[in-house]
């Protein structure tokens, strides 16, 4: 098994997700792209776990999955709250959240 191709696939998935976050304005689709970036990171961890025969990488991937679940819960709650107020799904509606 050639691990470097798996890592390259993870890089491609991460890139597509990042472009999705940068390009789209629908917060739901931006969120799904961010999920893809989480997944790409987990894939890289698992690939290196297989390469070095070390289960620690898989533990990291497990933690990534748990973190992504928490992030989705919070993010979708924020989205529903903003939608209740603005009645539009557009990321520019939430631009006041910037620092």
């Amino acid at each position, binding site marked *: 098994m050639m691990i470097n191709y798996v890592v390259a696939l993870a890089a491609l998935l991460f890139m597509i997700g990042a472009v*999705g976050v940068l390009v789209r304005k629908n917060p*739901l689709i931006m969120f799904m792209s961010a999920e893809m970036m989480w997944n790409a990171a987990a894939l890289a961890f698992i690939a290196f776990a297989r390469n070095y025969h070390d289960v620690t990488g898989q533990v990291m991937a497990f933690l990534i999955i748990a973190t992504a679940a928490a992030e989705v819960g919070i993010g979708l709650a924020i989205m529903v709250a903003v939608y209740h107020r603005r009645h539009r799904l557009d990321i520019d509606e939430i631009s006041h959240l910037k620092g």
Partner: protein
Amino acid sequence: MVGFAVIGVLLVLAAIAVVVARQPVHSALALIAVTMGLAMIYLILSAEFLAVAQVIVYAGAIMVLFLFVVTLLTAGKEETESADTLEGQRWAGVILGLLVGGALAVTAVLHPAPKIAAPVVAGFGGLHAVGQLLWGPAFVMLAAVGLMLLTGVVGVLMLNRPEVAEKNAGGGRTLPAGVTVVRAEGEDSA
């Protein structure tokens, strides 16, 4: 290797479909395809427990949550994306993203990590092996993740408190353009 190539091509296509889909529902379906393909790659990489966890947590929990919110917020609506506030940000994003991602992928292919010749030990990536680490050396991280999930649950409850939701309802559209107030008056007392 052939299986991995086929799944990889399908994964990239599904990932592109997530980004370019017009309807969020189509994005969600494509993301389920990405999730399933990744689970298969986890199986190829002998991470059986992670493959099962991926299917249960992502396809079972996260995507159902996504589909609930998509049907709640976008049912029967055709939303067009608003114009860019920053000139040419989309093209800049696409080009820079392609450059960075291409550089990462080429680097990964050209510099393979040193290989271990011996086959993986029996039970590698199984529930027992992962659990031994999670409840042993990595227990601090497991506890931290549990705390974080609890914080997430409490945060969701705080974000959608019933009294706040009632106050917010209906107030949105009447705000004149250019008003930058985000918090409604009197919300602090709630």
